């Protein structure tokens, strides 16, 4: 995307559609409606959060762990199904009692080819979590998504999500929530 891009009405409508999609997704997660969230995932999804490290400038290419290295998340569709089963279980102690979360989504930049049904979308998030008597966690970061256009009823499915968390050492006792 270049700075000199001329926007058409269709771009504005698409931006609105994507924003509304993300707001709906955030609502699913914050309302603990994980089944609805699962419905907007494509079965081929890779849900990936690499680890971020501290590096000197000349080795900054090593900042993120690579595809075949350790990560915070690297889930398939079936692995996410299992996570949701845990989130909804009576015996899932890390989320029972449940966290109070708020996903704020912003800085949405869409990159797409009009001939394709695929969108590459970058968005930023602040995820606030408050839990039990007084635990507070604040996560910020960027999500790089691949969205697929499906039908009118559900405008997009999330085909891939890479999450870059703005932390090296995760400053929380666990990552029992979804990003």
């Amino acid at each position, binding site marked *: 995307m270049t700075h000199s891009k001329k926007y058409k009405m269709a771009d504005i409508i698409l931006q609105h559609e994507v924003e509304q999609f993300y707001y709906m997704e955030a609502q699913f997660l914050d309302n603990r409606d994980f089944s609805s969230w699962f419905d907007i995932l494509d079965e081929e999804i890779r849900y990936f959060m690499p680890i971020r490290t501290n590096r000197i400038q000349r080795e900054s290419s090593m900042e993120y762990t690579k595809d075949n290295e350790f990560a915070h998340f690297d889930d398939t569709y079936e692995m996410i199904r299992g996570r949701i089963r845990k989130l909804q279980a009576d015996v899932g*102690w890390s989320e029972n009692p449940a966290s109070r979360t708020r996903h704020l989504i912003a800085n949405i930049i869409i990159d797409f080819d009009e001939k394709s049904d695929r969108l590459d979308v970058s968005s930023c998030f602040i995820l606030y979590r408050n839990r039990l008597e007084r635990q507070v966690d604040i996560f910020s970061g960027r999500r790089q998504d691949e969205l697929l256009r499906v039908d009118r009823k559900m405008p997009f499915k999330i085909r891939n999500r890479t999450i870059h968390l703005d932390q090296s050492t995760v400053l929380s006792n*666990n*990552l029992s929530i979804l990003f």
Partner: protein
Amino acid sequence: MSSNRKADYIHTSWSVEGLESLIDDEGGFIDPRIYTDENIYELEQERIFARSWILLGHESHLPNPGDYMTSYIGEDPVVVVRQKDRSIKVFLNQCRHRGMRICRVDGGNAKAFTCTYHGWAYDIGGNLVNVPYEKEAFAKGINKTEWSPLQARVDTYKGLIYANWDEEAPSLKNYLSDACFYMDHMLDRTAAGTEAIGGIQKWIIPCNWKFAAEQFCSDMYHAGTVSHLSGILAGLPPEMELSDSEIPTKGLQFRAEWGGHGTGFYIGEPGMLLAIMGPKVTEYWTNSANADKAAERLGSDERAKALMAQHMTIFPTCSFLPGINTIRTWQPRGPNETEVWAWTIVDADAPDDIKEEYRRQTLRTFSAGGVFEQDDGENWCEIQSVLRGYKAKSRPLNAQMGMGGDFGKNSEYPGRVGYVYNEEAARGMYAHWRRMMTEPDWRTLAPKQSLKRAAANK
């Protein structure tokens, strides 16, 4: 204070008798203040972390000369560097001039390290080699050897890198002693050895390090009861319910004769391993060409193929799960906080799809977001929070499981070996903790001495 300050103990409000009263190995009592007291924590830094072998990483983390990673021995930051002669050096990550951190990143490759405060420069062995304006500004000269950072002793056991500050401490091999037999289930399945999957995951749990170390040392009970039910559920095929899964009941626990190490495992019942690692890895571990090779190498079909969901701690903070292959150091960060540094290893000659499966399954189950590990953090921080209470700290906790049980000689498994649901290994860990906290030197602490004494008491 001269540069030759005598290495004496930190001033403490605790008497030896007071420290001794905190742990009762025979009675199975733990005084909760060992998890909360600031002075005890300070003493641990000196008497445990500055005297024990601490896990820092895997040889494959540093394949080339100049490759380095930063880590910690207790709260002391260190740099771990591969040398040109393939040896590994570990030195305190502190410039002796004004105490600045010499290396400020997690890792990389370096030809030298330069302190970013005044430019004192060190070679990759941690020797001070250049002091800016040395001739002009240090009229009396400066002894660069004397003002180099402190070097630790370094040794490896089958790929794992350990370091120890204490010149008097036993060798790593003697320190691990009969625990090696159990470590080999993970570390010595093939002549090719193991390799680490790249990347170390770090996160903080607001709890004392001993909760984590003890659980991996001694606690199969929490896995076989209620802690991880939802973790098991997360790994089941959608059509299966918890009631369809079989939680194992047969197995053994080991308490090291010396050193506070412990382990436990199920035998012949794959339910837990299957729930954690899935069918592919379970098949690899129990029924594959590599498993046959492991059986030959370990000289036992049972040890190579039938031991499942093994948990283990090498005192104080090195924990791992053979078969699941997650390894971690519990970095102490005050009495109320632990930083977990976790990574995964695989057999170096495992097929690529198995390596990939290990990577994905361990980060699905044993990581900050792991469907098993999430619930561990939950338990430990709740305990830590409860222990703020005066009454909560005023009575001992119960570590009596397995007391009076059979720990007779087992012809196949060395050490004190009993039933898998047990706290004998925890009692061993805390008994060693008590010795480390109260005995001033290795003349009494050394393993041989402890074995002799045990023999004399029989």
